[in-house]
């Protein structure tokens, strides 16, 4: 339940943050990588660092992560297939994988796991489409029903919670 409330807070705060639609969309797109790929991977540490360090919406990233976790579970068979094709059925790529496998640090990313590689490739391919899609969606939201939601009582209740203060630390400048 708490997770659901937090998700709701993330959604609301992200959509009404002071950040631009681009910052919010970039946050969601980066968060989608966290959700689509297996979480405990070295590349996700890099993604997390990017979310923290880049001036993107942190709430948007949390939102993207939360939304894309179930999507990731659903698409795992597809990711497995993609990874299998890339790792096992493309001889032209074998020298690349072999070099990466015997390189320092790179194997810690688990790139040689079919689901990890498949989901990472999928996330990378869809990063820009997601970014533009979410930017368009946020712009449309703010132009249409955003102001009415901001005036509603439940929005004020959500933003008044203590979590909002934590969020403000990472809000886009």
């Amino acid at each position, binding site marked *: 339940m708490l997770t659901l409330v937090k998700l709701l807070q993330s959604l609301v705060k992200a959509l009404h943050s002071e*950040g*631009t639609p681009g*910052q919010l969309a970039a946050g969601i797109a980066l968060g989608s990588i966290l959700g689509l790929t*297996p979480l*405990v991977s070295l590349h996700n540490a890099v993604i997390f*660092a990017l979310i*923290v*360090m*880049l*001036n993107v919406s942190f709430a948007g990233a949390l939102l993207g992560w939360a939304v894309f976790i179930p999507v*990731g*579970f659903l698409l*795992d*068979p597809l*990711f*497995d297939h993609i*990874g*299998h094709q890339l*790792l*096992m059925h493309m001889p032209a790529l*074998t020298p690349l*994988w*072999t070099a*990466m*496998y*015997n*390189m*320092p*640090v*790179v*194997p*810690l990313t*688990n790139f*040689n*796991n*079919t*689901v*990890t590689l*498949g989901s990472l490739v999928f996330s990378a391919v869809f990063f820009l489409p997601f970014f533009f899609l979410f930017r368009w969606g946020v712009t449309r939201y703010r132009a249409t029903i955003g102001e009415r939601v901001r005036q509603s009582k439940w929005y004020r209740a959500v933003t008044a919670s203590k979590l909002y203060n934590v969020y403000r*630390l*990472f809000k*886009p*400048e």
Partner: protein
Amino acid sequence: MSARIFRWRAIGPLLVFLLIGGVLWWLLADRIARRSAEKIGTAIVGAKVEIQSLHIDLANGDVTIRGLTVASPHEALKNLFQADELVADIDVVPLLEKKVVIDRLAANGLRFGTPRETDGRVPADPSASVSGRVMNEARDWAQQFQVPALQLATGKIDVGTLDPRKLSAIPAAEALSARADSSRKAWQTGLDSLHLGPTVDSATATLARLKTARATDLAALNEARRAIEQLKQARNRVTMLERGVNGGLTALRAGVAGLDSAKQRDYAFARGLLKLPTLDAPEIGLALFAPSAVAQFQRALYWTQLAKAHMPPGLQPRADDGPPRRRRSGSTVRFPRERALPGFLLRTAELSFLLDPTAPQPKRYAGRLTGLTSDPAVYGRPTLFDASAPAVTAGAMLDHVHATARDTAGATIQGVKLSPMHLPSLPMTLDPGQGTTQLGFALRGDTIRARWAIRSTHVQWSRDSAAQGSTGADLLWRTLSGITDLQVDAGVTGTLSQPRLVVRSNLDDAIAARLRTMLGEEAAVAERKLRAEVDRQVDPAIAPVRARVTTLQTDVTKRLADQRARLDQAQKDLEARLRELTRIRLP
């Protein structure tokens, strides 16, 4: 105003986050590593791996494991081994490549075959784990061996049911009967087609005319000569028919003789239904010790095949199951490369172990293991193990460097307490006590060569309570309970798909002689009973056919003889009258 790209003030929280991560690592790394090691070890061995404590000292590159227990995948309440302490000297830099290279491992207090309180085996699911698949393959391999039954517990000989449909004499008799009928019809037709009656009647009429004819009646004389010629032709036809009949009769008589052969075969078939206990010494060795021997070979095969699965030959990319997690595991593909480090390498292990740990003064020995690796082709050298002491010699070589894997292992242990062997077919339990055991195992590709032997001079026997009242078991007990020496030799050769098992022991001849004494008379009685049963079922079918053939032979022969006699008599009469007429004409 454009937004800035970097959020510099987030560096502080990020550093705090990293610090928290470091503290968590410091607090939980040992626990996480211990659980991971247990999980991975269990998956590899196919039985529970338990670790009391594990400490990682990355600064010095040391990993210390205390209280390691590896359960046996083959025995429920037994450990494969336990170790008091393992100290691994790890090369830290390869960890960045996710490769574990242990320069030196010191294992102290290794104990083999210790008891445990709970079942340490994990379910062998062939689709879920490599160990499960290998376990199933080894089990299937062991089930190929047909171990003959040694039915001594009751001393009874089982007489199987004699199915008349499986007796060959009955259908042979039916077939011969049909052949006799068709032959009779054919020969009758042949006789009818000879038309002997008109020929003989014509000759008789000619003879009558010739009796009143003169010597100058040339027409009558010529008619007589023509009649004689017709009689000769008729006799030739009879001769030809007779030849055919004789051939047919010979075939029928052969058929009758074939019935006797078929009956003999039926006797042999019936003897096969007697479930006689084997009386040959090699078969007895198989019946007694094959289960124990096969169990040893099955275990050796399991470990070598498991090693092959985790240490595959070659440099081709290969996929294994991915790490277990909530999400799909997928497959983790390894890309070995020449002159690179293998994924796992244990360069040297110094092993200190105890034999017979439950004895008042267990014996302490030392061994050495080198080159244990997940990528033998990358490492380029085989895995070697050796341990030697005054009473122990053990060695193994796993050579997976080339495409065809070569695994050899051998061990001789003297003065060790050997496990008691239950011999269900006797039924007795044999406790070899302290003795010598040897195991040799070689697997090259698909070709297997293995030997298992035990020697003991202090054998003790105990009887199962269920067989106390059996006469046969009593006799055998008296024979075997006086034997204190035991020598068992078992060997497997051939290929994995077609192995040949030979087992011999010094008990074989003693048991075989006793069996012959015990069961000889009973087997003879049972055989007589079965022969009588064969006679009862076969004779009613054979006897009428035999009689029919005899009757047919007599009948046809007699009819042919009669016809020939008629022709001969008519010709003789005509020729006599002709001679009489021609004699008057001559001066």
